[in-house]
């Protein structure tokens, strides 16, 4: 798993690639925590390169979502592959996450 960060003003974009499973989830959660410590106004996670996710990976995203909520940081996930979207569906957590089809859909949700 690799996570590439980029900034767009005070928005943080993170592109996740590879497998988010019980091997990589803790490292990813730590990474998200560090990112959120920087108090961005929004965290946008690009999942186009995310090949696989288990409940461990989902848990790291859930913890980040809770923190975003508590600290009024906007969160958006976009460009999920069908198999990853299916995992969100199976978990019953699909409606908990702000998921968008692509980057443009995120921008328009931000009123742009």
């Amino acid at each position, binding site marked *: 798993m690799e996570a590439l960060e980029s900034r767009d003003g005070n928005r943080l974009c993170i592109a996740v690639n590879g497998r988010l499973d019980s091997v990589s989830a803790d490292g990813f959660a730590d990474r998200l925590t560090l990112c959120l410590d920087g108090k961005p106004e929004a965290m946008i996670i690009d999942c186009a390169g995310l090949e696989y996710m288990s409940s*461990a990976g989902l848990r790291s995203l859930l913890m980040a979502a809770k923190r975003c909520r508590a600290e009024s940081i906007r969160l958006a996930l976009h460009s999920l592959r069908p198999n990853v979207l299916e995992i969100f569906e199976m978990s019953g957590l699909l409606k908990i996450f702000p998921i968008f089809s692509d980057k443009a859909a995120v921008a328009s949700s931000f009123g742009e």
Partner: protein
Amino acid sequence: MARAELTMRLHNRLQEIRRFAEAALALFETAGVPKSLGSRCVLATDEMLTNIINYAWPTGGEHLIDLRLVIEEGVIRVELIDDGHPFNPLEAASPMPPETLDDCKIGGLGIHMARQAMDSLRYARSDDHNRLVMTKFTKERNLADGSA
């Protein structure tokens, strides 16, 4: 789908799950198992292996898990056998899908997801071993329209 079988002896290390996933996906491809079915079986097995590796041996140490994956006419079966602490995953409560982020609990998702991904889970404890058998039917459509 051709009949195919994979047996593996995994160490109680999380990295071993990736070794299983690679081998299973290769077998599914060779046997002509549709991708969506194969990935559900891999997910369920990942979840149960993660549980076993993280919780079956509270005192740690090196342990082995025996895995058998069988693809047969109409069914995919995964069997996991470990000599860890007795644990029946079927007795673990399945979390209700939360309505809001605040309702959402951080733990307990893995077993729920394995149940969602597969058609049946069976557990037995015998000879001081946990024995879990997960089954996925591959002909749901035929069953649904009565032509099976």
